[in-house]
């Protein structure tokens, strides 16, 4: 019989299992950054494949080729009297091939939807909301709709051809459900956040008194917005939908900026307008008639900050670019302003202002007036709020301030959430945190570095976009 015996008692063994589990839990509580060892070794912008992917010789992919048989394709070739290839995607081909005819009958009978309903018994089939999303996501025609909220080429009833919308067909939901619907749609189109501000006696003041050509902006009763030579009319009962789009994260390499912020914003703007119109609601673009950061702050999407014309967000720092405003009668639950400690943090931080190549940013405390003597003398600002004001006479819009904010940070290192939580709850550490931000080298990067790193797919680094 073996004389082996364990020095570990059963009790100690079970305790040990528990310790190992605790160790596992502690490590797992740290946000996982890498999914496998290959990601660990693939840092610093390398593009090599994971260990399980073999690189093959040139001209030797996994598909076997017979080069003696394979020839350049003759695109004038015919199959059954029509151009090759004969496919089930064309209803015209149903007339010449029975197999295609059968596939088309299946499709036209709604087989796609029937299949989905069988798989998900609670699925009701496409509805107005789905059709609105389909139309908006396909609106490469830039179908914007009019100020009055008319959108053409909308499929009002699933399965029917596109048509001019019937004004009495509207998507129905509670204001809270509608906000969720719109938020999902907006994010899908590429917006970062949305907020809603009801029109009240105070918030109406966030609208300009007139357009720059002097046309007065008035609030009217009823539900019909309109514009003519005499006035721009906004229905008093509408809400202001505010949404933001991000600057490309690679704008951290400013002043070698990208223009993705506004270019992307224009696509998102059109899709959201189309979506609202297709749901049956008014959607008037009032961006030219309102103040952007003001609505951003009142909607809770950002806070007014030392960055002045940029609304600073606890999620994205100064990286908001597009800040669009739409008045709509779509019933939407309002979103509250927030205090994430940013306004207080700005007092001690000053990173953006001290990094301004043109000394165009305020360095003092928040004030009711402009801290620059010349700007104050000229009254070159909007009074009525205690905040920071850009030195417009010096700012040439280089965007360096976008890249500097401590709240710009990504999501991969857990210290950023720690900083956000601390800034909001224990402001005494703000100066220290701002100093650490600078000491740790965050902020603007060498523009040449952009070409050395793996560029993100699309516009934004995945770890930068937060839920």
């Amino acid at each position, binding site marked *: 019989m073996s004389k082996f015996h364990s*020095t*570990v008692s059963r009790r*100690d063994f079970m*305790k*040990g299992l528990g*310790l*190992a*589990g*605790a*160790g*596992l*839990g*502690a*490590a*797992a509580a*740290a*946000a*996982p*950054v*890498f*999914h*496998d*060892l290959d*990601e*660990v070794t693939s*840092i*610093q*912008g390398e593009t090599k494949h994971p260990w399980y992917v073999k690189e093959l010789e040139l001209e030797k992919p996994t598909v076997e080729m017979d080069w003696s048989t394979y020839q350049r394709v003759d695109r004038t070739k015919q199959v059954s009297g029509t151009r090759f290839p004969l496919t089930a995607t064309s209803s015209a081909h149903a007339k010449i091939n029975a197999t295609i005819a059968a596939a088309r009958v299946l499709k036209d009978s709604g087989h796609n939807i029937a299949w989905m309903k069988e798989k998900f018994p609670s699925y009701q089939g496409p509805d107005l909301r789905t059709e609105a999303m389909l139309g908006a996501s396909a609106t490469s025609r830039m179908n914007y709709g009019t100020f009055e909220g008319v959108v053409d080429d909308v499929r009002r009833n699933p399965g029917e051809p596109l048509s001019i919308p019937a004004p009495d067909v509207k998507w129905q939901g509670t204001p809270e459900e509608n906000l969720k619907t719109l938020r999902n749609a907006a994010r899908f189109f590429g917006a970062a956040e949305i907020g809603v501000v009801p029109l009240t006696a105070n918030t109406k003041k966030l609208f300009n008194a007139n357009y720059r050509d002097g046309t007065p902006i008035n609030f009217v009763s009823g539900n019909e917005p309109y514009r003519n030579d005499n006035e721009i009319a906004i229905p008093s009962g509408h809400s202001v939908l505010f949404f933001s789009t991000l600057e490309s994260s690679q704008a951290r390499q400013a002043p070698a900026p990208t223009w993705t912020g506004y270019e992307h914003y224009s696509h998102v703007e059109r899709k959201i307008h189309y979506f609202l119109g297709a749901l049956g609601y008014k959607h008037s673009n009032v961006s030219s008639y309102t103040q952007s950061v003001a609505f951003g702050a009142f909607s809770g999407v950002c806070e007014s900050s030392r960055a002045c014309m940029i609304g600073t967000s606890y999620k994205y720092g100064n990286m908001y670019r597009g800040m669009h405003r739409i008045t709509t009668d779509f019933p939407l639950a309002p979103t509250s302003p927030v205090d994430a400690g940013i306004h207080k943090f700005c007092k001690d931080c000053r990173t953006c202002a001290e990094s301004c190549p043109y000394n165009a940013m305020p360095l003092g405390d928040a004030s009711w007036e402009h801290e620059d003597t010349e700007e104050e003398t000229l009254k070159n600002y909007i009074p009525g709020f205690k905040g920071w004001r850009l030195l417009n006479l010096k700012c040439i819009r280089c965007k360096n301030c976008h890249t500097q904010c401590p709240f710009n*940070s*990504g999501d*991969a*290192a*857990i*210290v950023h959430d720690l900083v956000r939580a601390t800034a909001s709850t224990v402001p005494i550490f703000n100066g220290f945190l701002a100093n650490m931000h600078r*000491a*740790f*080298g*965050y902020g603007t*990067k060498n523009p040449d*570095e952009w070409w050395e*790193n793996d560029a993100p797919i699309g516009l934004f*680094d995945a*770890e930068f976009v937060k839920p």
Partner: protein
Amino acid sequence: MWLIIGLIAGAAVLGLVLWMRGKDVAVKWYEWLVGALGLALLLFTIQNYAGSLAELESTAANMFLLVSGLPAIILLAVSWQLVARRQRAG
């Protein structure tokens, strides 16, 4: 990666506890505390180092090694030495 780190950390702590039991090494509560803080700071350093590299912030990554990694090593060393020196004296 974190699965592996967790297994290693758990196994290391388990091994340490069993070894100390075998040698009749007594550990005071504050020695456990300092050691635990050191381990937590070490894990914090590793996570932020790797996260900073993923965010393309190499300066920040190196600063974490200095600012939190070094204190982590120091705390772990202090915990170790407190136990070791008391053992030698006792």
